[in-house]
């Protein structure tokens, strides 16, 4: 089983201000009880052995001080923001744990926001669901994949990731596309 201390995402993704993402992720990971096992169903990742498929479980851990920050985040942010920021935090964990690269930039893109990996090697779509079953997770992943593939940045770079997490199910789908 993979293990990852969530306080390390700032070190592993130094271009992002990750404190908020850590706090929101801890808030949504079983209400802050460490450790928290996340099942990551991965598809076609670049650094996994050829011909292998997920899922793989990653155990997320954190210190008591992060639980305090998580409690503040829960009181500060509306549920949508909390879930979105938590998803970015958990996505950063998945990138490092599975050795896929570094999330290193955010860009505005029309009416939305895009994330970049490894100095614009690939574009990244991230989404999170606080509660929801496997069907909802799969549907969200499908929707975000369509969004990624339909976007002009993916069409230009031809390389992209989709990461969707369902906190209530402790499950994520993480996929890579290269056309």
């Amino acid at each position, binding site marked *: 089983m993979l293990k990852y201390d969530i306080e390390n995402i700032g070190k592993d993704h130094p*271009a992002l*201000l990750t404190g908020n993402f850590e706090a929101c992720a801890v808030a949504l990971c079983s209400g802050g009880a460490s450790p928290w096992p996340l099942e990551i169903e991965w598809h076609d990742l670049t650094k996994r052995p050829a011909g292998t498929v997920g899922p793989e479980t990653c155990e997320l851990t954190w210190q008591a001080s992060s639980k305090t920050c998580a409690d503040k985040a829960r009181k500060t942010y509306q549920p949508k923001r909390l879930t979105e920021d938590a998803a970015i935090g958990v996505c950063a964990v998945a990138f490092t744990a599975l050795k896929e690269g570094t999330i290193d*930039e955010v*860009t*505005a*893109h*029309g009416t939305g926001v895009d994330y970049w990996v490894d100095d*614009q090697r690939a574009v990244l779509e991230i989404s999170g669901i606080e509660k929801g079953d496997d069907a909802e997770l799969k549907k969200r992943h499908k929707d975000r994949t369509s969004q990624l593939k339909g976007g002009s940045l993916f069409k230009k770079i031809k390389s992209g990731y989709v990461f969707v997490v369902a906190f209530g199910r402790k499950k994520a789908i993480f996929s890579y596309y290269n056309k």
Partner: protein
Amino acid sequence: MPKKPIDPKVERLKALKSAYILEADASMARGSDAAAMELFVKAGEMELQLAALRSARHRPVSLFSAGSCFLRAKQYRQAMRALEQVVDEIPEARELMAVCEGKEDLPIAGTAAGLQALVELLVKRKVITPDEWAGALAAHG
């Protein structure tokens, strides 16, 4: 193959503008349009600085993002100037330019509340120094 090191100045600008964009997007989502507009302007300015520092491969994305930031801040003329530079590389820029067409820039309310909170965070995370913080707020009026 080892990764090519990135210019520390570019790295720092990427971190700063990423924080501004995320905060602006969050402000917009919670209906704080005035705070969002000023943050998007700052982010757009940083994207322009980044575009000037980056390679030809990376420059179009920074310019496109700058245009998007200015558009979301309702600064249509600045948006047009950034977007018209990338229509060949990113066709979607043409759609955003159509949105800007014939519109006057909206005044920025300049509440500075969103900016101050964010700058405090950046100082705390040691992304910028307290001196730069003072400078940023003074520049904001």
